[in-house]
């Protein structure tokens, strides 16, 4: 289709993680951990000392890096920077909100689902009919 923006093929991109220690540990066991020459990692472990600013900075960094294809973020962490997550609208990297040990996944808070759910709402149907 003319004018459709294309996605460049990336042959080996990373999965970034912003989550609690157990979740990060588990995914590192699965081999996603990466440390580059400048000692920058593709993960941020959230504990009770982590500030919202640190989470924001990590989210902004991971979503602007060209070598990252997917950013996993625990939903309770995403709720701390909800305005930032909801305003993100690029196709790559894909942002996925995942459950954590103490906070189950709630589809009502998911940024993508809340964006598309308006198609199911009565107001959208009524406005289309008008």
């Amino acid at each position, binding site marked *: 289709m003319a004018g459709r923006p294309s996605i460049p093929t990336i042959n080996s991109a990373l999965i970034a993680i912003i989550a609690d220690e157990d979740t990060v540990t588990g995914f590192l066991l699965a081999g996603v951990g990466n440390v580059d020459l400048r000692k920058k990692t593709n993960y941020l472990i959230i504990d009770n000392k982590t500030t919202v600013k640190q989470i924001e900075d990590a989210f902004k960094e991971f979503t602007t890096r060209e070598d990252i294809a997917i950013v996993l973020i625990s939903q309770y962490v995403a709720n701390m920077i909800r305005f930032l997550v909801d305003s993100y609208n690029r*196709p790559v990297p894909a942002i996925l909100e995942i459950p954590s040990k103490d906070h189950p996944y709630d589809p009502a808070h998911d940024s993508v689902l809340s964006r598309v759910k308006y198609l199911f709402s009565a107001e959208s149907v009524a406005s289309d009919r008008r």
Partner: protein
Amino acid sequence: MAAATEEHPGSTGFVPRAAEEVEEVHEANEEERLGRDDDGDEILRFMDSVDGHLLLMDSLSPALRRGWIDLAGARHWIGTSRVSSTLFDHKEQSAATKVQVVDSADLQSSEPNPHFVLSKWHLQEKSNSNDAVSAQDNTKPKLRFRGSTTFPEDGSHEADVAPAESWTGVDTRSHVQRARSKALSVFGALVSPKLRTSQISFETALELIVELANSRSNMLASFFQIKDG
């Protein structure tokens, strides 16, 4: 008779115009019907992708839970300090599990629609270079059928393991084992079996996550198609 003949050319000129108008109206109706059919297909695809997304998320939670429980079990057996993020090596290292991103073949969508392919333990780098082409061929979203074995309730994914097994030989299996052992070696030479099962659980979770990324991508593409249409 002469009057009727004289009138006939005039009436003959009028009739083709009416026929053209009827044909134009018919074509417009046909285009509108086809447009409605396309919209209907897109809405069906969108609802299917939302349903698939929610099902995948339901499968992800048990996989992660198994991983967390096994990690807690490993901590219980070998001690909290032996299973801790402080043991992570901050020396330069490349991730063994990565993702390949290709543009979806769905050209009907006006929005970019990336497709993600998981590459575990460097396996994709060892396979054929045709993988990117075959991945692109499989990116057009297809409707799922409920009741299929795609999403087993226990969260296990033998379906994902079987295709890998079909093109991995003994060498690749041993390569995967070595890669897994290397990842576990952060926690010492002798690791608890719970750590090994936790590793498998998180690998399963990763497969689900990549499927989730694809379903998210399809969902957003259908959403924008419906919104703009």
